């Protein structure tokens, strides 16, 4: 059985290096959880991301809870959550108490000028892997959704909701079962 300590330590590492929001942790999760430890399959990970988006709360927390809960139940979920939160908690506490001028520091500012484009790359790169094997119209739909959210600022939850409804509706047609299962395999 996976020890709670291993779960905690893995998410501590992920929490310490996730800059620029939850999606930047996708490559970290892939390397640590899927390839190195085998805690998740790729299909579970893709489904997990979808679930994390449809549940309130930061993506990073939701992902930690999913993986922790899957491996060791409630205790696992708590270990993962505490692990992913601790780095930001202590760093912010340190800044709030001692280094209020942190953000005006020239070296810190320069480091972040270098890291910002890297974070965009870390968010965008896994999409290549996810789009592989998807039908062209799904990729076109994903592109359209991203542009509408980006330019019009529509709340993402509506797209998730409509996607779920359409998917459920589609699964009710007579030969629906086999078709959906085939698509699931493609993921």
């Amino acid at each position, binding site marked *: 059985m996976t020890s709670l300590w291993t779960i905690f330590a893995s998410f501590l590492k992920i929490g310490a290096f*996730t800059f620029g929001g939850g999606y930047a942790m996708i490559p970290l999760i892939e390397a640590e959880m899927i390839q190195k430890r085998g805690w998740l399959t790729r299909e579970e990970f893709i489904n997990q991301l979808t679930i994390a988006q449809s549940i309130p709360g*930061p993506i990073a927390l939701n992902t930690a809870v999913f993986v922790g809960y899957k491996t060791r139940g409630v205790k696992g979920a708590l270990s993962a959550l505490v692990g992913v939160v601790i780095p930001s908690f202590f760093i912010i506490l340190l800044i709030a108490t001692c280094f209020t001028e942190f953000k005006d520091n020239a070296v810190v500012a320069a480091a972040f000028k270098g890291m910002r484009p890297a*974070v965009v790359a870390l968010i965008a790169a896994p999409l290549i892997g996810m789009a592989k094997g998807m039908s062209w119209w799904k990729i076109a739909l994903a592109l359209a959704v991203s542009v509408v959210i980006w330019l019009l600022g529509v709340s993402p939850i509506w797209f998730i909701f409509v996607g779920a409804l359409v998917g459920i509706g589609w699964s009710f047609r007579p030969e629906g079962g086999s078709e959906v299962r085939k698509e699931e395999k493609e993921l």
Partner: protein
Amino acid sequence: MIYLQLFLAYLKIGFFGFGGGYAMISLIYNEVVVQHGWLTAAQLADVAAISQMTPGPIAINCATYVGYTVTGNVWGSLLATGAVCLPSLTLMMLATRFYFKLRGNRHFAGAMAGMQPMMIGLILSSALMLFGESTFIDWKSWLIFAGCFVASVRRVNPILLILLSALVGIVCYV
């Protein structure tokens, strides 16, 4: 009763904050600046800036920071941070349980398949939003982006990429 107010405000932020990060800012603004006046708008902008420079979700960073500034001690931080995590913890455990029970069901699989292109679109939109900000300041930023993109597709360790890009930033921009 400042502790109770803090707890309830961050519970609310955790509970209604869909879509993570930047979608949460307006919610945080409403609670922290408009409703309770714990921070001024300028202070919240500072917290958001610090948040982008430190690891972790912005909701957590903000909870830790505001919890400390409002109460003047670590317990305030801990309380606010715990409150913002609570909805995630409980709802996500329920959803995970639900997922593993239902995943063989054809209609549930249909819903997941229908949400999948949306999920990818959402991630792409968050990358696009970062394009709009002050991320790409010169050709060196584009070079860092291109290098990290190719390296990440080729599965180079992401922690290494973060550290290297910070180093390149210090060398290029100090």
